[in-house]
C-alpha cells in the first residue's frame, strides 16, 4: 500500500468518525425528542392564574427568591420591585449584594428604607464574608445581604441560601425578568410529587420584546441576527432537550436564571461548589450523585411553560465568551464527576445524561472542528471519495436543520407560544441559515473553551450588559 493510499484510508476513517459521532448525536436528539413529546402530552394544562391560585395557594410551600447582584445599580430597584410584586402566597426576596463597586446597595437602602439588621443564618454553604444584613419593617418580604465579592455567582447564591428559611428556594439573576405567576406555575411539582427536589423552567429571550416595570408586556422576536439564532437555540435547549431529558430522568442542568430547589437537598450537598463557571450544571449533577448514592428517591423536573426572560448577547465577542465559558463549565463538571459517566449504577443520569455530555459537549466540538478542517481538505486534494464527502455534508447540515425544524414543529404542535406566522416563518428560515456558519462558529468557540479549560483559565470575562427595551 502506497503512502497516498494509506492517507486516503486515514481520511476515510476520519470521515467515518465525524459522521458516526454526528449520527450518534442525532440519535440521542431523537430519543430526547420522543421523550419531550411524551412529557408535553402528560404536562398539566396552562391554567389561568385564578385557577392556579385556587388550586395551589393553600398548599404552596413558602419560597425564598435569591437574587445575587453585582454592580446592578442601574436596574436593581426595578428588578427588586418586580420580584416583590410576584403572585405567590408566601415568599421572601433575598438580594445578595456581591461586593458591588457601584451604588447597588445604596440604591436599595434608599428606595426601600433599609436598616442594618440581625439575621440568624445556617453557615453550611461556603461563601466570602458577610458585611451585614439590611431589612425594613416597611418591606418585610425583603432582606439584603451585603458581602465581600466572592468572585462568582455560586459564592453569592450560597450566602443567600444560608440566610433563607423556607423549604423551597428560587435561584435567579438580578437581570432576569420573571413572569408574575412563574412561582405558582413552577411550584406544582413540589405539591403534586413531594419527592421533587428541583424544578427548572423555560427561559425565553427578551431581546426585541417590550418591557414595562420589570415585565415583558409585548413578546417579539429579536432584530439582531445573533439574538434571533439564540432564540431558536433556546427552543432546542429548553423546550426540547431539557424537557425530554427530564422525562427520561436525566436532566443535568437547572439554569441559574431560574430554578427552584428544596433547600434541605441543596444544603445536604453543601450548596453550590465554588471556583467553577458551570455552577448550575454542577449543582444538579451533585444532587443526582448524592440522592442516587444514598438511595433516596427523588425527582428533578422541568417545565415547558416560559417562566423567565433574559437578554441574550448580541455581539460576537460576548457570545463567544459565553459559549467558551459554558464549555469550560461542562468540562469541569464532567471531570469532577467522571466516575458517573456511562456508569449503570447512576441509571439514566450516568448513561443518558453523562453520555450526552460526553458526546455533545466533551468530544463533540473537537471532532466537529476536526471534521470541518480535514474532510473538505481531503476531498479537495483527492484523498476522499465524493460519497464520503457527501455523507459528511449530510451529517453536518441535514442533521442540524432537522434538529431545529423538529424543535419548532414540537413547539407549534404542543405549545404554540410563537403565535405569529411571520415569526414562525422567520425562525424556520433561521433553522436553515444557522447551519451555514453559525453552528461552525459555535463549535470553534467551544474548542476555545477547551483551550481555556486546559490553561485552567477562571472567571467569566467581560460581558456587555444588554438593556431591555422599555416602554
Amino acid at each position, binding site marked *: 500500500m502506497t503512502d497516498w493510499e494509506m492517507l486516503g484510508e486515514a481520511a476515510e476513517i476520519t470521515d467515518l468518525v465525524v459522521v458516526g459521532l454526528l449520527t450518534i448525536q442525532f440519535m440521542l436528539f431523537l430519543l430526547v425528542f420522543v421523550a419531550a413529546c411524551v412529557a408535553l402530552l402528560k404536562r398539566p394544562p396552562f391554567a389561568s392564574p385564578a385557577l392556579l391560585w385556587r*388550586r395551589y395557594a393553600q398548599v404552596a410551600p413558602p419560597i425564598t427568591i435569591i437574587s445575587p447582584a453585582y454592580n446592578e445599580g442601574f436596574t436593581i430597584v426595578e428588578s427588586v420591585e418586580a420580584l416583590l410584586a410576584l403572585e405567590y402566597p408566601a415568599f421572601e426576596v433575598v438580594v445578595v449584594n456581591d461586593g458591588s463597586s457601584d451604588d447597588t446597595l445604596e440604591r436599595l437602602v434608599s428606595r426601600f428604607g433599609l436598616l442594618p439588621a*440581625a439575621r440568624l443564618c445556617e453557615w453550611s454553604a461556603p461563601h466570602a464574608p458577610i458585611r451585614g444584613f439590611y431589612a425594613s419593617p416597611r418591606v418585610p418580604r425583603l432582606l439584603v445581604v451585603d458581602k465581600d465579592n466572592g468572585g462568582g455567582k455560586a459564592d453569592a447564591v450560597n450566602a443567600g441560601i444560608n440566610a433563607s428559611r423556607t423549604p423551597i428556594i428560587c435561584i435567579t439573576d438580578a437581570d432576569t425578568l420573571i413572569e408574575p405567576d412563574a412561582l405558582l406555575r413552577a411550584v406544582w411539582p413540589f405539591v403534586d410529587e413531594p419527592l421533587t427536589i428541583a424544578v427548572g423552567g423555560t427561559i425565553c429571550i427578551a431581546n426585541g420584546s417590550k418591557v414595562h416595570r420589570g415585565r415583558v408586556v409585548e413578546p417579539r422576536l429579536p432584530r439582531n441576527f445573533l439574538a434571533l439564532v439564540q432564540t431558536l437555540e433556546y427552543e432546542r435547549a429548553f423546550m426540547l432537550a431539557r424537557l425530554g431529558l427530564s422525562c427520561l430522568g436525566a436532566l443535568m442542568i437547572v439554569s441559574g436564571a431560574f430554578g427552584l430547589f428544596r433547600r434541605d437537598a441543596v444544603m445536604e450537598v453543601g450548596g453550590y461548589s465554588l471556583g467553577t463557571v458551570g455552577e448550575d450544571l454542577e449543582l444538579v449533577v451533585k444532587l443526582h450523585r448524592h440522592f442516587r448514592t444514598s438511595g433516596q428517591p427523588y425527582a428533578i423536573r422541568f417545565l415547558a411553560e416560559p417562566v423567565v426572560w433574559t437578554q441574550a448577547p448580541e455581539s460576537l465577542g460576548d457570545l463567544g465568551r459565553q459559549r467558551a465559558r459554558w464549555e469550560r463549565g461542562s468540562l469541569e463538571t464532567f471531570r469532577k464527576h467522571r466516575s458517573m459517566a456511562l456508569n449503570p449504577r447512576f441509571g439514566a443520569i450516568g448513561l443518558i445524561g453523562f453520555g450526552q455530555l460526553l458526546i455533545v459537549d466533551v468530544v463533540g466540538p473537537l471532532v466537529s472542528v476536526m471534521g470541518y478542517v480535514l474532510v473538505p481538505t481531503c476531498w479537495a486534494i483527492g484523498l476522499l471519495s465524493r*460519497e464520503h464527502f457527501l455523507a459528511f455534508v449530510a451529517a453536518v447540515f*441535514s442533521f442540524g436543520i432537522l434538529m431545529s425544524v423538529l424543535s419548532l414543529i414540537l413547539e407549534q404542535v404542543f405549545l404554540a407560544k410563537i403565535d405569529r406566522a411571520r415569526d414562525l416563518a422567520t425562525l*424556520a428560515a433561521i433553522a436553515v441559515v444557522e447551519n451555514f456558519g453559525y453552528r461552525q462558529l459555535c463549535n470553534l468557540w467551544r474548542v476555545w473553551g477547551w483551550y481555556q479549560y486546559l490553561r485552567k483559565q477562571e472567571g467569566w470575562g467581560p460581558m456587555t450588559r444588554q438593556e431591555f427595551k422599555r416602554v
Partner: protein
Amino acid sequence: MSLVTLFWLVSWSVCGVSLAILIGLVAWRAFANRRADARRLERAGQIELLKARAERPTDAVGVAASEVLTDLAVEILELVRGDEKARFAERVARAGAAGRLHARLDRGGTRTRILAAAALANFKDEGSRAALTCALDDRNPEVRLTAALSLAANGQAPPPEDVIRRLGIGDHESSLLTVMLLAEMAQTDLENVRSLLLDASTAPTVRAAAAEALALCDDFAAVPVITALAIEADPWASELPRYLAALAEIEHPMGSPAILHCLESPSAEVRAAAARAAGRIGVEHALERLDRLLGDPDWWVRFQAAHALLLLGEKGVARLRRSARRNQEPARETAALVLAEQADAA
C-alpha cells in the same frame, strides 16, 4: 446504491419532509390566527350580550352556549363570588355551558379533561355532579384528582373511603392537594374524614393527610387521636412531622404530650416540627427542653426552638437572654441573634 449514498439520500429526504411540515405549520398558524381573531370578535360580542342582560338576572343568557361562550362563562365564574356567581352559573348552565363541559370531560384530551373538571366546580347541577363522579374513574390521575376536588368544593363528594380508593391516595397518589381535598370533604362529612384517623388499616400517608385536613378545619375533637398517633409513630416515620404540623395548626394544649415526647426524638426533622408546635401551642412545660435544643447540632432545630421560646412570652425570652449571655455555642449565637431580630422587627 452504497450505504454512504443511502445515508445522503435518507437524511436529506427526512430533512425536506420536516421542512415541508414546518412550512405547513406556518400556513396553519396564519389560518389559526384568523380563526382566533374571529373568536375574539365573537367573544367581544358575547361580553356585550352578557352585559346587556346583566340587568335582568332572571333571564337565561339568551343564546345557546358556544365553545367561546363556555370559555368566557368559566372565566367570569372564576372571578365572581357568592349569590352573583350562583345566579350566573345557573343561567349559563341553562344555556348549555355545563353540557359542553360535560362533553369535554367525557371526550377531550387529558389537558382538556383536567380544565373541564376544574371548571365544573362552578356548577352544582345534577348533571355536573354525575359527570364529575364518573371522572373519578378517569384513566388519568390528574383528571381524577381534579374531579374529586371539584366535587368536594360543591359538597357533593362520595364518602372519603370511596374517593381514596378511586384516586389511589396513599398508594400511587401522593399529591399534597389530597390534604385540601380531605379538608373540603370534612366541611360536609367530618365524621367520615375523622374515622380515617381512627382506622388502623388506613395507610399512614392518608392518616397524615387527614390529620392536616382536620387541622385546617380546626377540628379539636381530632387532637387526642393525632396526639396518640404522634406518640406511637416510629421516630423516623415521614408522617410524624405532618402530625406535629397538624397539632401546631390546631393550637390546642391537648397535643402537649406528643410534643414533649417528640422534642426528644432522634430525628432532627421531628424535633424541629415539635419545637415549632410547642411555640404555636404555648407549651410551657417544654421550656427546659426548648432551652436545651438551642444547642442542637441541627440549625433548623435551633432556629425553631428559639422562635418557640419567643412565642412562649416572658419566660421564654428570659431563657433566650440567659442563653445569649452564656459562653456555649451554638446556643449563645442562636439566642442572641433571634433576640436581635426580634428587637429589629419591633
